[in-house]
């Protein structure tokens, strides 16, 4: 379970997050939907401890795996070495690290790139390694910042499938997106963010009811107040 309570964060005079509270329960995918600049990345960074909020608090019960905004791979290390490094940093023994790395290479379909240096990886391959790194210690909670950003169709579909599988395995999955379609395809719950505030929270059906629309896209646009910064 991940919960945000009254988060607030400003950079200088610019308010990035004004009032963000929501709850992401176990066993389901919660989407943090909002246009670019709505405060998604900042909210997530507070949740995974990179930033300190000016007010409010973030609660995560249990281990947390994080797929940040940028995959950030080392060009001269292989996929397997990335996973092993992450495992060792999480405190796993060398043997456990090898085992976990091997298992994730199979599960995420990275066998072909497992022992190649990351310099030549495609966007999708990079994202796979980064996801593997996030899941290396088998965390109960997983936060993904725009995990499908910049991926082609097959890679996007694979990523969405992985996200679903995590929730079906009982984990709490929170991911941010500015793509309307993605919400309908993957998530159980939606937190709609606009200008640093949560403007709606609930299941897609609840949001349709609340806005009186029949189409999820229309409902989001109405909640956010503009189409700008959204993608479909």
């Amino acid at each position, binding site marked *: 379970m991940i919960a945000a309570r009254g988060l607030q964060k400003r950079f200088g005079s610019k308010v990035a997050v004004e009032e963000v509270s929501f709850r992401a329960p176990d066993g389901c995918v919660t989407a943090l939907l909002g246009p670019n600049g709505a405060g998604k990345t900042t909210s997530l960074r507070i949740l995974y401890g990179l930033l300190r909020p000016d007010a409010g608090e973030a609660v995560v019960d249990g281990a947390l795996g994080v797929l940040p905004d940028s995959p950030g791979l080392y060009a001269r290390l292989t996929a397997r070495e990335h996973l092993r490094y992450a495992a060792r940093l*999480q405190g796993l023994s060398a043997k456990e690290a090898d085992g976990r790395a091997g298992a994730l290479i199979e599960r995420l379909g990275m066998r072909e790139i497992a022992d190649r240096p990351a310099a030549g990886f495609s966007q999708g391959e990079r994202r796979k390694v980064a996801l593997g790194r996030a899941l290396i210690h088998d965390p109960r909670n997983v936060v993904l910042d725009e995990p499908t950003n910049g991926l082609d169709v097959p890679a996007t579909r694979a990523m969405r499938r992985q996200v679903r599988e995590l929730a079906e395995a009982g984990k709490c999955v929170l991911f941010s997106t500015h793509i309307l379609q993605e919400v309908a395809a993957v998530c159980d719950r939606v937190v709609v963010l606009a200008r640093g505030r949560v403007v709606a929270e609930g299941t897609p059906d609840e949001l349709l009811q609340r806005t009186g629309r029949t189409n999820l896209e229309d409902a989001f646009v109405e909640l956010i107040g503009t189409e700008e910064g959204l993608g479909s």
Partner: protein
Amino acid sequence: MKALVVFAKEALDAARDRRSLGSALIYSLFGPLVLAMALGAVARDRSEDGPLRLAIAGAERAPSLVRWLEQNGVEVVPSGGPVALSIPEGYAEDFRASRPAKVELIYDASRSDSRGPVQRAETLLERYGAQVTGLRLSARGISPRVAQPVKLALIDRSTAASRAALTLGMLPIFLLMAAFISAMNIAIDTTAGERERGSLEPLLVHAVSRTDLVAGKWMAAALFNALGMGLTLLVSFLVLRWDRLEELDVPVALSPGDALRLFVLLLPLTLFAPALQMLISLFARSFKEAQTYLSLLIFLPVIPDFLFSFQRIDTEPWMRAVPVLAEQVLAGDLLRGQANGPLVHLLAAGATLLATVTCLAVTARMLGHERIVLGR
């Protein structure tokens, strides 16, 4: 200890970075190469003590002068050489009439190899003139001594050995510079580079302390730095053992024991430099910016030497407790054969290690600052 995990990864990553390793290698060979060339020049000077080779234009106008020059160790050559003598028309006439007879010494002052020969030619011509003066005065019944109120004797005490020692004085500079060059790229890559490629954020979300991260990264950089400095020292040592130097009797000795002492003396500095470089890189906005700062930092060890060479500053006790300066002064002492007590060495090493730990502590703290982590 997670610092060791970070160290292993950074060392592996750095070992695979062929381009950085290659440039560090070239740098570490650069110093010894300059040293070899300088010592080669000393050796050549030494071997140039043969006859003065002089081309003479209009030799037929001054047969007695030419003969005298030949008798005094000048080899008359048809052309070439760094200096030439020209005897203009009218020399013989003036000479006979006891008027100052003009001769011209032609040389190119911008050629560094012309200085010695010109000086030698000048001295010879002056001696010839003095001899003729003596003869003329004697012919008029005056003692030649009257015309020589002061007798000047120049005694050049510089020997090949002292010139070689001066050259050897460059060695500490090259070693100190190697300590600021060898791990420069690793220091940048693990800090500013880590942030620029976006791998700092994923790194910080792992359950690992910032102290462990900084310690591991620094250990990797320090290892490569010590190797780089050691390589520079090793190659310099081999250059100084060059057979030709001994053949030409240019006595520059760096005993294996002294080389080892030099390495131990400079070791704290090889630990300090990457700590300082990592701290500075973290403040830089990009990899390139960090590179600019650290390239300037390379000249840090040169500054004291530069000042010393302009102004004779005696080394003061406090200088042996200032990082970088202390290593330089102590390395100079060691090469000149002046022994310093163990306490002096401990003080210098202690000061440098304290500075190292301070840099590392500040770097670890900085990694907790949002502005530094996000690079804003």
